[in-house]
């Protein structure tokens, strides 16, 4: 029943919004070619509504939905409501029924809504941004002690970034459905500006974000009942929001739900699925390619003049980074060096030796292009389990070593002391260069809410960029898989804690501090890397949005103004280049 109403409401809303593209504050409904003044579309469904009444009925339906809230249906007594096909009258009688019950509602129900009783038939809910909202305080008396009053929570999470023309906090929440809408209602005189029934998707998006943030704040304050209600609401809102925003919100809502209900994702499927998902992510957007190409450029320059080279890759996956490096080495003016690759990877659930498979393929490639190749794979649950001695590093007169970590080092932050141990091991390997690629965002703050907000901004931007490149992608499967890949990260950041939370991204400046204190000096990525990266991005269809930035010798790839990943290069301190 509720769904029916929602569908009708949406149908009406879409009729209203599609019939007029320009601003708010007008009566937007164009009457359809009618039969006796009745709206034709609804008539097909069996409801008789006058076209002229459409706006009014739509609003009343919305009010009704608000009033009924999540368990509102139980608030109705057993009176009979006449003739549902006369939609207008039926809704009106429902409303008055519920209004009569409203004052009896106990604070234990989730949301107490009170509509201004005497003006219920002419209540207009104005959506326009600039309209001053008359502080109709009739409902306020119920809210002062109400633990579920959202206004009390709103605080910084909702109002932090928006500027409101009125100091009254209520205005900041355009409309959070299951809450204080009653007090937003304007008891406007009949001559007032006509009702606006637009469902503005931009505003719906803002509403969505606000609800998400309110939910996160509820979780932060351990108010699980409220968080539970809000998260369900977000799910509804997200489902009706098209585009990247809706997808991001769905993932975040799912992650929040997992956190609230304490259902943590199983680890079993992680590794094998992860690699497949990462392949799709590789194909659909330039982030990984950027990471590989810029890191390769740094490694190539460090390897200049060497006859034997050794690369240690902290997360081999499918080895997609190395063909390009091998090809560049093969075409070196003084001929290719002997190339040795050590790949580290997680254990596979079915105990297959995935690393060896990748090594074999790389060997085939190396054979094709004429590069002497040697491969060794190490299976490890965590990088901290590996130390330099195991890797059989040959003396530096014999071979030049490079260490490469793409999106891997941040996982060590889950265990205290692990990252320092690994950085010491790296030092012991005596590399000529260490390339580090990490996400450019702080998802490792101590406060959950801060992490949540950071992650929300970060992944919204990422999804936006995916969305734009999707317009020219031949396969949408890549896009979907990439979103799932990112969705897993979101889930980890939001829902997990302790050693399970491995997606502990940190910003470039934080990594810089860490590397400096571990005794590494920065190596500037040259202009070649920058040019190659810019060119690579120009190839991507959504290339207008991607930006390469140089940040004190490091390269950052971002979407419009927001940097998303950063590549940096390091060498052990005190080493001559």
């Amino acid at each position, binding site marked *: 029943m509720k769904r029916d109403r929602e569908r009708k409401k949406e149908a009406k809303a879409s009729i209203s919004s599609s019939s007029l593209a320009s601003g708010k504050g007008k009566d937007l409904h164009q009457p359809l070619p009618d039969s006796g003044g009745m709206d034709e579309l609804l008539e097909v469904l069996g409801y008789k509504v006058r076209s002229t009444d459409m706006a009014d009925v739509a609003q009343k339906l919305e009010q009704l939905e608000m009033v009924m809230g999540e368990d509102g249906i139980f608030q109705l007594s057993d009176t009979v409501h006449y003739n549902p096909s006369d939609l207008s009258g039926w809704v009106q009688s429902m409303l008055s029924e519920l209004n009569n019950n409203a004052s009896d509602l106990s604070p234990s129900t989730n949301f107490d809504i009170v509509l201004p009783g005497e003006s219920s038939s002419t209540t207009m809910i104005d959506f326009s941004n600039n309209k001053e909202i008359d502080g109709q305080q009739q409902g306020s008396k119920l809210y002062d002690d109400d633990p579920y009053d959202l206004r009390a929570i709103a605080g910084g999470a909702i109002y932090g970034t928006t500027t409101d023309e009125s100091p009254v906090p209520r205005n900041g929440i355009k409309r959070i459905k299951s809450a204080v809408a009653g007090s937003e209602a304007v008891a406007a005189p009949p001559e007032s500006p006509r009702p606006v029934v637009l469902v503005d998707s931009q505003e719906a998006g803002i509403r969505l974000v606000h609800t998400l943030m309110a939910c996160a704040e509820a979780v932060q304050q351990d108010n699980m009942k409220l968080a539970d209600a809000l998260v369900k609401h977000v799910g509804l809102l997200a489902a009706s929001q098209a585009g990247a925003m809706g997808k991001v919100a769905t993932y975040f809502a799912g992650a929040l739900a997992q956190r609230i209900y304490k259902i943590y994702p199983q680890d079993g499927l992680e590794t094998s699925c992860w690699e497949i998902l990462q392949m799709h992510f590789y194909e659909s957007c330039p982030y990984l390619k950027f990471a590989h190409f810029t890191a390769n450029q740094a490694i190539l320059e460090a390897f200049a003049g060497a006859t034997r080279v050794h690369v240690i890759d902290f997360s081999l996956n499918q080895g997609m980074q190395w063909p390009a490096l091998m090809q560049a080495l093969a075409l070196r003016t003084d001929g290719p060096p002997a190339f040795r690759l050590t790949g580290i990877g997680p254990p596979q659930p079915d105990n297959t030796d995935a690393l060896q498979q990748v090594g074999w393929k790389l060997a085939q490639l190396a054979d094709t*292009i004429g590069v002497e190749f040697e491969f060794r794979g190490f299976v490890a649950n965590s990088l901290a389990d590996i130390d330099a001695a195991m890797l059989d590093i040959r003396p530096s007169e014999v071979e030049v070593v490079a260490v490469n970590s793409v999106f891997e080092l941040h996982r060590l932050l889950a265990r205290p002391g692990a990252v320092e141990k690994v950085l010491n091991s790296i030092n012991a390997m005596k590399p000529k260069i260490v390339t580090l690629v990490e996400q450019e965002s702080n998802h490792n703050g101590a406060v959950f809410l801060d992490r949540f907000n950071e992650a929300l901004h970060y992944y919204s931007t990422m999804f936006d960029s995916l969305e734009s490149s999707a317009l020219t992608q031949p396969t949408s499967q*890549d896009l979907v898989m990439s979103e799932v890949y990112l969705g897993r990260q979101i889930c980890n950041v939001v829902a997990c804690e302790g050693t399970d939370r491995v997606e502990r991204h940190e910003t470039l400046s934080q990594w810089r501090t860490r590397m400096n204190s571990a005794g590494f000096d920065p190596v500037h990525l040259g202009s070649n890397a920058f040019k190659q990266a810019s*060119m690579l991005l120009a*190839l991507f269809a959504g290339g207008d949005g991607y930006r390469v930035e140089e940040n004190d010798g490091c390269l950052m790839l971002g979407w419009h103004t927001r940097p998303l990943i950063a590549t940096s290069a390091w060498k052990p301190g005190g080493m001559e280049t």
Partner: protein
Amino acid sequence: MVLIHENEDQVFHNDDDDDNDNGRFCINDNLDLLIEVLQRVDGRSLGSAACVCRQWCSIVRNDSLWEHLCFRHVSPPPVGVRPVVSALGGYRRLYMVCVRPVLSRLKRRRIGGGGGESEVVRRVWNQHEVELSLSLFCVEYYERLLVGGGRGAAAAGDSPASSLKFLCKPVNV
């Protein structure tokens, strides 16, 4: 009137015997000239040339023509590239899979308008574009290895592997 009559005679004459040295020249007799010409045309024309007849097709399939096309404006072509490119699938494939899309995309970026195939050819490569194309080409070969399993990369056909799909236009021309 007389003149026209003479021309008609000549026309008839030429149709009768192709090989006669009547002042009429047939390119198929002078393949070295044909190759010289083909070394200067753009990729699209090379492709069309392959459809003319079997003889032309076999000439066009010669990789060195495509090598000329790829490196026409980069002088000198980098040393040692040829064996690598041949091993990875050849210059024709390099052109089709990497060079052409890369150049047309980059040209479009810079100028902002769609140029024709001839625009693409007249454009001068620079070193970085060469390197980038070769890298992408190598990645593509590797991906076909990954996908193709034991069968090897050659069996995978002419369509580029998925990592280069971002270079493809949605509608195949």
